[in-house]
């Protein structure tokens, strides 16, 4: 294994992390099905029914396994596979072939599977074409039961990198996790159940990899899930480099496993809500994986930035509903559109501004272009039926703004009631990110359920320092006493009105300040998903009575 034999491939990473180990090329148990004449179709069909019952039972237990490991949304596929096995048309086809051709059940299942897979393969959209894999998967399962062979088991002593052409969802979930370092597939898409399962399971994985599986079985490989690279027979230099990268990552994982499921509680018993900040539905798995207690800041901008038109109510509703359902009862705070001249979309037609930080942005756009705002509010109120959503309004500077928001919300609710559309009753709060909001926080607190302090903007507006300008670095103090006193003031004013307070800016993740924040009485900290566990560790070391 020398430098000259190293090969580098690229694929699309569906989950980060580094895996180093032997490559095991996974071959499907493609049982060669032979067409055999039979004498007694009834007996053959009885054999088929027994196999089907066994296959359904297997799917039930896979469903339970997946439910525990990856949650209801991802487990649903196994329920759908059960329905497919019990589908009237599928079974009629099998029966028809067995009876009319007087052939064995294996052959009937294989032909039926091929025909149904073909139907999907010929469909127009990508998603439906991929469902051909589901049909093949259930047919394979039936065949394995009929032939009495086990599938999916990987017979190796040491953990390996699984390389395969493609992996069916049932194959991924059956893999013995202790034996799997990673998987690399030639096909597959980010939409595939396998990719979603991989993300939720936290296994580094690459799909759509440009690798040839011939002759790589048993060779040493490295999967770099951060860069989307797959190395076969790496040289010593790369191996060393990757081992170091892996160690850093492993340290994070160890922290994770030792702190996962633990409470965010100080030594003297003060509990704190520790939530995650995210900017896309794609980050939901990180929220769950890092054991966040909720979402403290979900930036809704991506919906607008990734679109070439104003996102419709339905488009937004689907996203918010997914968030609410995935969080399954945990709070998810969604911040309404916070866009401005620095983060803009062409279709908004915003003019260039001399000073975008102090310009037409956030709530100012929403209160001017109320139709855009109402579309988002309608989607949010409707999606609230499906979980514990909360709504947060950015860039507030006055009580009048909140009153205006309440009026608009009342109109939205009236319209929804009028059209008999179900909607929930989400908590509503505001961002405290302007010195003005800090000064009048006592009055603002009377109007809302919660505050979330956006320390990045608050610091910038308080110190009059642009963080993007490196020449100002020597003047900048992230822990400036002015900012810290403002936070203390906000908490005091809010608590007097029974309003709870979180911090969702970068300072929230600054473990040098965690103790100070807790002493101030901050109720919630919302940080990037990868900071959840480090902050939890810090919280658990603090003794506020000491």
């Amino acid at each position, binding site marked *: 294994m020398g430098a000259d034999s190293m090969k580098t491939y690229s694929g699309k990473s569906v989950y980060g992390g580094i895996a180093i180990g032997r490559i095991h090329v996974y071959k499907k148990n493609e049982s060669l099905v032979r067409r055999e004449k039979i004498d007694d179709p009834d007996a053959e069909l009885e054999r088929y029914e027994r196999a089907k019952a066994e296959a359904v039972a297997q799917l039930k237990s896979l469903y339970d396994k997946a439910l525990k490991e990856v949650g209801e949304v991802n487990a649903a596929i196994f329920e*759908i596979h059960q*329905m497919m096995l019990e589908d009237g048309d599928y079974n009629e086809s099998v029966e028809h072939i067995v009876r009319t051709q007087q052939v064995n059940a294996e052959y009937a299942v294989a032909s039926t599977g091929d025909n149904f897979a073909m139907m999907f393969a010929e469909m127009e959209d990508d998603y439906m074409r991929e469902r051909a894999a589901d049909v093949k998967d259930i047919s394979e399962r039936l065949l394995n039961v009929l032939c009495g062979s086990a599938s999916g088991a990987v017979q190796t002593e040491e953990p390996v990198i699984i390389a395969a052409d493609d992996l069916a969802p049932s194959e991924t979930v059956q893999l013995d996790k202790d034996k799997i370092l990673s998987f690399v597939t030639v096909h597959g898409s980010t939409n595939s159940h396998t990719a979603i399962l991989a993300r939720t399971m936290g296994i580094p994985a690459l799909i759509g990899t440009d690798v040839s599986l011939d002759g790589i079985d048993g060779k040493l490989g490295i999967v770099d899930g951060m860069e989307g690279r797959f190395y076969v027979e790496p040289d010593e230099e790369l191996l060393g480099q990757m081992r170091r990268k892996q160690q850093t990552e492993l340290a994070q994982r160890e922290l994770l496993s030792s702190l996962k499921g633990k409470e965010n509680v100080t030594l003297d018993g003060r509990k704190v809500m520790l939530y995650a900040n995210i900017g896309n539905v794609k980050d939901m798995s990180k929220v769950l994986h890092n054991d966040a207690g909720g979402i403290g800041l979900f930036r809704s901008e991506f919906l607008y930035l990734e679109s070439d038109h104003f996102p419709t109510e339905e488009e937004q509703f689907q996203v918010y509903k997914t968030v609410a359902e995935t969080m399954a009862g945990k709070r998810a705070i969604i911040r309404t559109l916070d866009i401005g001249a620095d983060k803009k979309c062409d279709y908004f037609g915003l003019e260039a501004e001399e000073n975008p930080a102090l310009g037409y942005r956030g709530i100012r756009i929403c209160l001017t272009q109320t139709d855009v705002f109402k579309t988002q509010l309608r989607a949010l109120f409707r999606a609230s039926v499906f979980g514990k959503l909360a709504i947060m309004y950015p860039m507030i500077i006055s009580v009048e703004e909140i009153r205006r928001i309440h009026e608009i919300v009342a109109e939205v609710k009236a319209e929804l009631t009028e059209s008999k559309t179900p909607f929930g009753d989400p908590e509503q709060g505001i961002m405290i990110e302007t010195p003005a909001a800090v000064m009048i926080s006592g009055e603002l607190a009377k109007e809302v359920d919660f505050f979330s302090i956006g320390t990045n903007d608050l610091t910038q507006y308080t110190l009059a320092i642009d963080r993007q300008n490196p020449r100002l670095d020597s003047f900048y103090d992230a822990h400036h006493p002015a900012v810290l006193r403002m936070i203390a003031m906000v908490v005091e004013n809010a608590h007097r009105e029974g309003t709870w307070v979180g911090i969702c800016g970068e300072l929230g993740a600054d473990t040098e300040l965690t103790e100070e924040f807790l002493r101030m009485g901050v109720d919630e900290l919302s940080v990037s998903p990868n900071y959840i566990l480090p902050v939890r560790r810090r919280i658990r070391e603090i003794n506020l009575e000491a």
Partner: protein
Amino acid sequence: MREFRYVITDNEGIHARPAGELVKLAKTFTSEVKAAKDGKEADCKKIFALMGLGAKKDQEVCFTITGEDEETACEALERFMRENL
């Protein structure tokens, strides 16, 4: 017989998960439940047929429900479509 039309708003159309849920719901009624699109018709109690319609966003699907419990079935199915698709 009851009938209603629905235009799909979900980006992915009647994909696996909602199709599964729709089949589950349709099976709770004794009535016959059919969905039709562009001249193709599918039995809503059969998942392959339903997915085979390939109903996508912005396409109209026509549901016909015939049987004893058609009234309640129609109402429940219409609500399901509105909330999920």
